[in-house]
């Protein structure tokens, strides 16, 4: 009935040597995370201290411009700020005061560092302390860096959450904290599953509202739902919390193993998990099976993008029958990804970092059936005859846990089905 998939006979990809590349990296910077974080955290405002490029990135990365008044903005540095003609701190205080006056609903303000603010060494940490004093108790001002020189794409969320943990209150309670921004519907499903297996004191990070920010202490245990949270993981451990390692909850297998790990940690029999999850597991398997017909036997190439590559490769190879040629990731965090790496059959190239032109050469040589890559590469590769899946959709779409497992497989199956469907030549 609930037959587990057979794990690889050896150590999987655990000991696979990693191809480390240092060249042009075709990735977003960490500011991009603001695009989803500002929707998730409803009383927070993200003020990027940066350049016109930062503002343009946020506008473009949103794919479509979300013109409802966003809860983010850019304080654009100008010539006079750089030349020292204006005191950047005074300017910042003025802009923040104006912003908070206009937005009385804001409880958390993040000053987000950018490449230019890092290079001119604008001390946003001190600015945040100063502004917190000025605007307390109404608003708490915090800072993190989303700069391209420090962070890649999803690392922006990591930096933001690490900052929140640093400032979180202490506790002795034995709470479970689920770490990583999830769409609301998925978060509710996760909490429902945990409650059904008997874990109830669950907090989420990030929380929708400031007052629900979890307190952290030596009895706190935490599980990650996103693989890119290395700094947050480290900060939580520094505060005494205990990590529950597990594969990430993508697909039927990933979700089940994730729940098993939590059940084990809380002394709950795995049979309870099996009973509770029987129906959703069956649904997930059925939904995946429909898409796996398209995916089975197809080869797969990951360009580095969101750090979701390793768990997704595990899902696509084990649950959908694909073969990975290369799994590229911006940063390979072995501690967090160990359980996933173990499950992936040895064979694919594991690469970390990027030299985009060389990686493109490898992709062309490998002729994968499906290439997962960023928006800058997708159409050019399609024009060369490859089939692609844009990676950014993976962080903007509900893809975790059982009920989304079919949707996750569908994201990869659709480009392949579309290619088969289109008949653009003459009939003869």
């Amino acid at each position: 009935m609930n037959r587990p998939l057979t794990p690889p006979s050896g150590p999987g990809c655990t000991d696979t040597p990693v191809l480390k590349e240092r060249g042009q990296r075709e990735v977003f910077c960490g500011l991009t995370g603001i695009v989803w974080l500002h929707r998730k955290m409803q009383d927070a405002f993200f003020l990027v201290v940066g350049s016109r490029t930062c503002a343009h990135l946020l506008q473009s990365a949103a794919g479509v411009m979300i013109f409802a008044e966003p809860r983010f903005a850019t304080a654009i540095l100008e010539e006079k700020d750089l030349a020292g003609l204006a005191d950047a701190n005074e300017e910042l205080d003025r802009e923040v005061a104006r912003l908070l006056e206009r937005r009385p609903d804001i409880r958390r303000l993040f000053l987000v560092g950018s490449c230019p603010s890092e290079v001119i060494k604008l001390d946003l940490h001190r600015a945040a302390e100063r502004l917190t004093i000025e605007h307390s108790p109404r608003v708490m001002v915090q800072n993190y860096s989303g700069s391209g020189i420090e962070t890649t794409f999803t690392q922006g969320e990591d930096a933001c959450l690490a900052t929140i943990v640093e400032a979180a209150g202490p506790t002795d309670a034995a709470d479970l904290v689920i770490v990583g921004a999830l769409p609301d519907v998925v978060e509710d499903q996760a909490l429902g599953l945990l409650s059904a297996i008997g874990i109830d004191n669950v907090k989420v990070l990030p929380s929708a509202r400031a007052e629900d920010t979890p307190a952290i202490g030596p009895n706190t245990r935490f599980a990650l739902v996103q693989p890119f949270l290395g700094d947050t993981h480290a900060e939580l451990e520094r505060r005494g919390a205990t990590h529950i390692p597990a594969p990430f909850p993508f697909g039927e297998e990933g979700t089940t193993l994730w729940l098993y790990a939590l059940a084990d940690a809380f002394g709950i029999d795995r049979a309870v998990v099996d009973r509770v999850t029987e129906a959703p597991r069956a649904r997930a398997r059925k939904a995946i099976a429909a898409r796996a017909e398209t995916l089975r036997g197809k080869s797969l190439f990951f360009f580095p993008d969101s750090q979701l590559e390793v768990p997704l490769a595990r899902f696509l190879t084990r649950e959908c029958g694909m073969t990975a040629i290369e799994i590229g990731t911006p940063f390979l965090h072995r501690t967090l990804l160990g359980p996933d790496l173990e499950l992936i059959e040895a064979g694919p190239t594991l690469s970390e970092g990027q030299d985009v032109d060389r990686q493109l050469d490898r992709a062309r040589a490998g002729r994968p059936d499906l290439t997962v890559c960023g928006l800058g590469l997708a159409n050019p590769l399609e024009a060369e005859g490859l089939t692609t899946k844009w990676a950014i959709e993976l962080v903007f779409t509900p893809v975790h846990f059982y009920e989304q497992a079919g949707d996750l497989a569908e994201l990869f199956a659709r480009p392949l089905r579309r290619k088969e469907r289109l008949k653009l030549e003459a009939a003869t």
Partner: protein
Amino acid sequence: MKLTVWTYEGPPHVGAMRVATGMKGLHYVLHAPQGDTYADLLFTMIERRGHRPPVTYTTFQARDLGSDTANLFREAAQDAYARFSPQAMIVGASCTAELIQDDPGGLAEALGLPIPVIPLELPSYQRKENFGADETFFQIVRHLATEQEKTAQVTANILGPTGLGFRHRDDIEEVTALLSDMGISVNVTAPMGASPADIARLPAAHFNVLLYPETGEAAARWLERTHDMPFTRTVPIGVGATHDFLAEIAEITGRPVVADTSRLRLPWYSASVDSTYLTGKRVFVFGDATHVKAAARIARDEMGFEVAGLGCYNREFARDIRAMAKDFGVEALITDDYLEVERTIEALAPEMILGTQMERHIGKRLGIPCAVISAPVHVQDFPARYSPQAGWEGANVIFDTWVHPLVMGLEEHLLHMFREDFEFHDEAGPSHHGGHAPAAKAEGGQPPADRADQPPRDISGPVMDGTATWLADAEKELKKIPFFVRGKARRNTESFAAERGLAEISVDTLYEAKAHYAR
């Protein structure tokens, strides 16, 4: 420091990318941190290009700072040359690299590459995208154009079209046809489609057509000064402007005007009785200066609209736009602050906006129809069909595009007459749109559910302090007024009440205001 929510223009290096991506055989080596590669997607996604922009980024990280960022640049430039074998290279810095002062120009020169290497100085903290494109194109022309004999036949260059330009692809076709009708062939179109070798041949033409002053004026002026090449001042967008453009060419070349208007339909469509309802529609015009100038003239002279206000976001052209506004008897709005544009539109309450994608969203929120006339661009601004703005076909396209968002003549009357019909009611929007709310959502991505149909929360301070209270009857009467004029009726009545110090608005006040403002 300036607080910005949305921007009309990107940074200047994106302008340089527009030039490089439009051209062939040119490569741009950009000293820039990791993350600046986002700009590639503007071209691959919005413009649907099947090639990566010809740009190599150094993508330096924090660990490189202070150690070997200069070396990173040298390696990137050398690798790019080896891999792409361009005919020429442009080199420069993005905003962050400008701060670390590695001097890409000097570094690249020291490499001694066997091709022209053109350094760009684009001050990221002062200037913006259009300047970046104009300056980059100018530098390329200045470095590569060579003195040479004119072509035997009269030829012209078309200057200004770039990658990611608003309808540049189709305007080139249209202008080429206009010139061809006059017996003039095109020597080079640049930057779009030109190689560095083509740039060298620019001075062989007899004159230049400056199609987009935003991105081609510095080059056109330099060619005039250095190679004695006159250039056209009129941008041929609109019927009148196209006639003026041809007259200008006749003057420059001494050839007679030949205008094949056999497929031009705007004048008749505008004169036909069906268009009567367009008379005096109040429009607000905003965008880049070139398209605003053209659109305002078309709106007033060729569509019979009333221009209620106009402005542009590129300050470089503020003087022109102010002069034009004066001629139109309105005040010019020169700003790149999206919120200021929104406030102005709200205050003017026009019946239609001719603007950019930003104004389209403003219109969506305020319930005002909008037709897009200018960059910044969106994937929708690259339609599959031929859809120029310039020339005769451009005028036809503009007529259709501007009329489409409006409620059509008879429909407008029917809405007035039978306003309670359960299907054919005003909230449904123009009937040819199949319900306006879904159409708007489909176009702009997902609006956040909680805000989609509500006016934006006011973030710009109170707009109308001391507003009189609407009595229930008057409020009900107001609801009977069709949606596309209701906002204006409300505002007019409120200002009318305010001017007279009335505390309450009755049905009578509503109709007194209507009579007062009747035009």
